[in-house]
């Protein structure tokens, strides 16, 4: 397979699909966060994606990097709390690497790795702390492993699968960071809402490339 990301990945479609998945699952995200956090994660993420859509609509040249940058700034500028802006950091790093290298698997891998590093610098969470890092780190690893050979479609599908594995793992963990850390064993059995958000993010990308790939030869 020699498909390039340019053929199969549209950042605009990715973000729009992410926004749709967040809207469709907002109630479930809220219910999850009511169990382990302060209950605002669903609305936080929905506010971020809604703000991102508004910015996408007003872009004059919606190339991939510009779309990701617009979404990043929406999350960073307009959303309170911490998890929304942390998604902004991930989007910002993706925008930066896609801008310099185009939407290749290698650029996606580098962008996600940079975003993960930024999020860890800012929030201080390590894998195993029951945060969104537990879904993002395996997704970054899957992209890194794929970046030499796999086309972006395949690499993003792998990243989504790895992210969901990480999400399921968070259900077993006891939180050491974030709001749920105050709950001790009461948060056990519940997956981390931020990690679920990361799962939705990569699943949305995987969905876009799966839909498009067969039609683009």
């Amino acid at each position, binding site marked *: 397979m020699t498909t390039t990301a340019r053929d199969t990945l549209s950042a605009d479609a990715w973000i729009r699909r992410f926004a749709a998945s967040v809207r469709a699952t907002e109630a479930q995200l809220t219910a999850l966060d009511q169990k382990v956090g302060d209950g605002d994660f669903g609305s936080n993420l929905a506010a971020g994606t809604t703000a991102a859509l508004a910015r996408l609509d007003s872009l004059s040249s919606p190339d991939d990097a510009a779309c990701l940058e617009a979404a990043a700034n929406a999350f*960073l*500028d*307009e959303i*309170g709390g*911490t998890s929304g*802006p*942390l998604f*902004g*950091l991930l989007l*910002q790093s993706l925008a*930066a690497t896609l801008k310099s290298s185009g939407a290749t698997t290698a650029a996606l891998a580098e962008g996600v790795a940079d975003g993960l590093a*930024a999020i860890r*610098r*800012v*929030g*201080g969470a390590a894998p195993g702390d029951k945060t969104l890092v537990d879904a993002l780190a395996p997704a970054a690893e899957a992209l890194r492993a794929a970046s030499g050979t796999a086309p972006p479609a395949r690499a993003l599908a792998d990243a989504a699968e790895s992210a969901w594995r990480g999400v399921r793992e968070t259900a077993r963990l006891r939180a*050491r960071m974030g709001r749920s850390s105050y709950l001790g064993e009461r948060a056990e059995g519940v997956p981390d809402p931020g990690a679920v958000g990361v799962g939705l993010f990569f699943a949305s990308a995987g969905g876009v490339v799966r839909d498009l790939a067969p039609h683009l030869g």
Partner: protein
Amino acid sequence: MASYFENGSDALVPDALQGFALAHADLVTLDPGHGFLLARDTAPARRVALLSGGGAGHEPMHAGYVGRGMLDAACPGRVFASPHNRQIYEASLAAARPGGVLHIVKNYTGDRINFGIAAERLAHRGVPCARVLVDDDLASDSGEVATGRRGTGGTVLVEKILGAAADAGAGLDDLQRLGSRLAARCRTLAVASAAHTSPTLGEPAFRLGPDEIEYGVGIHGERARRTAEKGPLGPLVERMTGELLAALAPEPGCTLLTLVNGLGAVTPLELYAVHGELVRVLGAHGLAPARCLVGDYATALDMRGFSLTLLVAEPSDLAHYDAPVHTAALRW
């Protein structure tokens, strides 16, 4: 309990910023959209901008320290809440100098995260940015607290000295190192005999008996880990100072800076009595303040309490401390 004078709780901070900017128009300009204050002029030789911020309710911190010889910009959040990363980011862009911008951050989780996000955004814009984390509060010095010591009153001394060093042309790395060294040699301990008035409820945030004090409060009205018996001032200051000295272990004859800081509702009469006791206790340990500050510098709304800060300085720090400063709350 009296409630606050305000046009509604959401209006108080923006109203106060507006009023502050009008009162000190010679020193600062206000960006009302993003909610930060920018110094009108700091030393032309300054290569790096100094920026601080944190919750409102600590007045004169942070706005009161914007001006010549101290901060280039300050971003106050809502009462006791971190500023938004956008506020910090926009203020940093507005204040940044060719050598970049130094964030002086008090160690509270929200502040760390929001300043951290702003720093990541600045890095993407190619603006050099570094951070000094002030974590002087001895009461939160515990292995059980993963978040580390809180940042409180010592911030004022750190900002003053860094301001003079920045005026002298120090670069970002040097300022970051200097700030970290100062923070490491600075400890604060605070007590309160009555809580602040909660802005949302208009009632005391917690209640104490007439013979009780909270020993080891922060600056957000947090209760201390323990409630102690009140007793007379002398033994209280002795105990507090003893704990600070045990933590810092200063050599006799060292350059010691002290701050006796009111938390909002303690009278100057009392604060000077505290200072007298502090000097007496230090003297008994063979120590004397090289410089001292007494007054309300980092408050917690109307909390009835005070904090003691000791900073063990180098002689070069003393020269920076003595350098001229002209801000709303600190000038010499």
